[in-house]
C-alpha cells in the first residue's frame, strides 16, 4: 500500500495553512518548496494564521523542526500575528508534539479538533441513546441482511463500517456474511467502548474497532471491497465530504453502501395527520442543526456527484409488524425524548409547540401498538461502484 502523499496548501481566504499525508524527508532540502510556501503564507497573513495538521498522518523530526523553526522565527519578528495549530484527537502524536510550541511562544496556541466541532453530534452520541440504537439495528437488520448481497456484501471481502456507532451492525455482518476483515470506525469513544465490550462478551476479537473522524480518516486509499456507512450522511453537516472519504478508501471496483432516512415520510394509521405534522417538523428541526434527515431519496444524486457508477437505490419500510410492536414503540419513545425533550428545547421552541410535537410521536406509538394499526419508518439503502 502506498503512503498518502504529502500536501501543503494555503487557503488565503480562511488564512489556513494545511499539512496532510506523510512527510519524512532525509533533509530539509526535500521540503524546501513547502517551507517557502509556508513562509510566504505567514508574510501574507494578518491577525491569526491557522495551521491545520488534522490530516497529517506522519511527520518526522526533520520536518517538524523545519516547520516549527519557521513559526518560531515568525513569532520573534512579528508581534502582530498569532498562530493557532489545529491538531487531531485521532492522530495522537500530533497533539503531543505540537503542544510544545505553545510552551515556547505565547503567540502560538494548540487546539485539538474532535467531534464537538460538528453541529448537533452531541444529541446522537449521548450514551443514553445506546439501547435504542441496538433496537434500531435489530429492526433494520431484518431487511438489510436480505438486500446487502445486492450491494456487494459477500463472504471473504475486506470491509469497513464507517460511523459504526455501537458496532452491532459489524457483529451481525461478521456472523451472517463472514468477511475476511472488518474495520469499524467511529468518533464516539463511548460508543466504541461499548462496541469493544459487546465484542469481547461474544468472544469476538477480529473486528478492528478504531477511533477516527469519518471525514479525515487515517485509513489508506483503495483498501476495501465494501464500505458501509449507515444513517450517518444525514446527520453530518457536509455529507459530500464524508462521501469523498468513503470513495477514497474503497477499492476501484468495490462498492460504498449508505442508508439514510426521509423522516417526513414516517407514517402511521390511525392518527395519520398528527404523525405527519410531527415528522415534517422533525425534518425542520434537524435542518436547524445542519443535518438533513430527508437525505434518503437524494442518495442517488450524492453517489453520482461523488463519482460512483452502477448506482443502486432501494427503500424498505421498518414497521410495527417487524417482530414485537413494542420494539417499534420503544424507538419512537427514544426519538421523542431526544427530539422533543432536548433538540427542540435547545432550539428554543415554545412549550405549546413542544406539546404538539410530542403528541405526534405519541400518536405514532399509538398506531404501532394498536391491534389494527400500522406504523412505518422508511429507509433508503443505496450503493455505488467506484470505477475501475
Amino acid at each position, binding site marked *: 500500500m502506498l503512503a498518502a502523499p504529502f500536501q501543503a496548501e494555503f487557503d488565503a481566504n480562511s488564512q489556513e495553512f494545511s499539512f496532510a499525508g506523510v512527510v519524512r524527508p532525509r533533509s530539509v532540502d526535500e521540503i524546501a518548496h513547502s517551507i517557502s510556501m509556508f513562509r510566504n503564507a505567514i508574510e501574507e497573513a494578518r491577525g491569526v494564521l491557522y495551521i491545520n495538521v488534522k490530516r497529517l498522518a506522519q511527520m518526522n523530526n526533520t520536518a517538524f*523542526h523545519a516547520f516549527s523553526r519557521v513559526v518560531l522565527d515568525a513569532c520573534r519578528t512579528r508581534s502582530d500575528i498569532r498562530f493557532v495549530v489545529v491538531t487531531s484527537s485521532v492522530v*495522537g502524536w500530533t497533539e503531543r508534539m505540537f503542544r*510544545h510550541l505553545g510552551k515556547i511562544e505565547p503567540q502560538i496556541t494548540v487546539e485539538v479538533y474532535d467531534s464537538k466541532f460538528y453541529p448537533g453530534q452531541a444529541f446522537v452520541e449521548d450514551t443514553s441513546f445506546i439501547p435504542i440504537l441496538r433496537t434500531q439495528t435489530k429492526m433494520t437488520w431484518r431487511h438489510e441482511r436480505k438486500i446487502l448481497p445486492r450491494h456487494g456484501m459477500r463472504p471473504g471481502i475486506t470491509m469497513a463500517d464507517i460511523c459504526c456507532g455501537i458496532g452491532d451492525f459489524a457483529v451481525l455482518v461478521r456472523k451472517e456474511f463472514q468477511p475476511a476483515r472488518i474495520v469499524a470506525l467511529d468518533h464516539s469513544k463511548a460508543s466504541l467502548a461499548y462496541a469493544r465490550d459487546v465484542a469481547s462478551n461474544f468472544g469476538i476479537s477480529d473486528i478492528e474497532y478504531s477511533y477516527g473522524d469519518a471525514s479525515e480518516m487515517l485509513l489508506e486509499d483503495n483498501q476495501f471491497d465494501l464500505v458501509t456507512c449507515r444513517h450517518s450522511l444525514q446527520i453530518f453537516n457536509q455529507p459530500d465530504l464524508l462521501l469523498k472519504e468513503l470513495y477514497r478508501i474503497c477499492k476501484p471496483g468495490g462498492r460504498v453502501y449508505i442508508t439514510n432516512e426521509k423522516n417526513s415520510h414516517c407514517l402511521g394509521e390511525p392518527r395519520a395527520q398528527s404523525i405527519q405534522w410531527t415528522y415534517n417538523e422533525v425534518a425542520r428541526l434537524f435542518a436547524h442543526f445542519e443535518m438533513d434527515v430527508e437525505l434518503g431519496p437524494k442518495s442517488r444524486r450524492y453517489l453520482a456527484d461523488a463519482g460512483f457508477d452502477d448506482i443502486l437505490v432501494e427503500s424498505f419500510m421498518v414497521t410495527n409488524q417487524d417482530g414485537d410492536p413494542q420494539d417499534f414503540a420503544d424507538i419512537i419513545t427514544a426519538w421523542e425524548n431526544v427530539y422533543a425533550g432536548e433538540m427542540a428545547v435547545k432550539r428554543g421552541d415554545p412549550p405549546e409547540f413542544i406539546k404538539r410535537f410530542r403528541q405526534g410521536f405519541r400518536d405514532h406509538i399509538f398506531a404501532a401498538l394498536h391491534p389494527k394499526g400500522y406504523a412505518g419508518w422508511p429507509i433508503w439503502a443505496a450503493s455505488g461502484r467506484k470505477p475501475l
Partner: protein
Amino acid sequence: MNAAHRQPAEPKFEPLLQFEMEMGTFLSDWHHCDQLSTYMARMISHNRTDPLRHSNFFSSALNELLEVSFRGGSPEGRIGCAVYRHGPKERVKISFPCPAGQRQFFREAVARTHGNDAYARYLDALSTDLAPSREVVLLDLAINFDAEIRLEEQDPPSITIVVDLPLEGIVS
C-alpha cells in the same frame, strides 16, 4: 543480598516480529525507514485495541529509531530490529554497527533522556536548533511517546538501543 536490594524482576517480553538486513542495503535508500516502520507497525498493531491508531503512533516512533540508525550507522555489518510485547508495552531492540566515536555520543544521548532537565533540553533544542540532532530525536521519544530508553553494547562494533513504548495506554 536481602530482598530490599533486589532489582525488580524483568518482565517477560514476548517476541512479535523481527527483521535483519545488510547495513549497506539498508543505507542504500532513505525510504527503507518509512517502509519498514509502516509495515512493522501495521503487523504488530493488528490485535491492539485500536489497531489503526496504534499503528500510526508506533510507526512514528519506530521511524525515528530507524532514521537514527540510518544517520549514525556504518555500512559494514547488519542492522537488526526486533519488536516484543509485554502487556500494554512494546519493546523495540534496534542493533546496528556504528563507528567507535559514536558510541560515547549514544551513551550520553541515552543518559540525557533520563535526566531531570530532559524536557528543558528538548524545548531548548526546538527553540534554537536549525535541525534536530540524534540526541533530540531520543528526547522526542522519551517526551512525546513516554519511552524508556537504554543502550546495550555487548557486541561491538554494533550497539543496541532498547526502547520500551507504552503506546497502548496512550492510544486507548
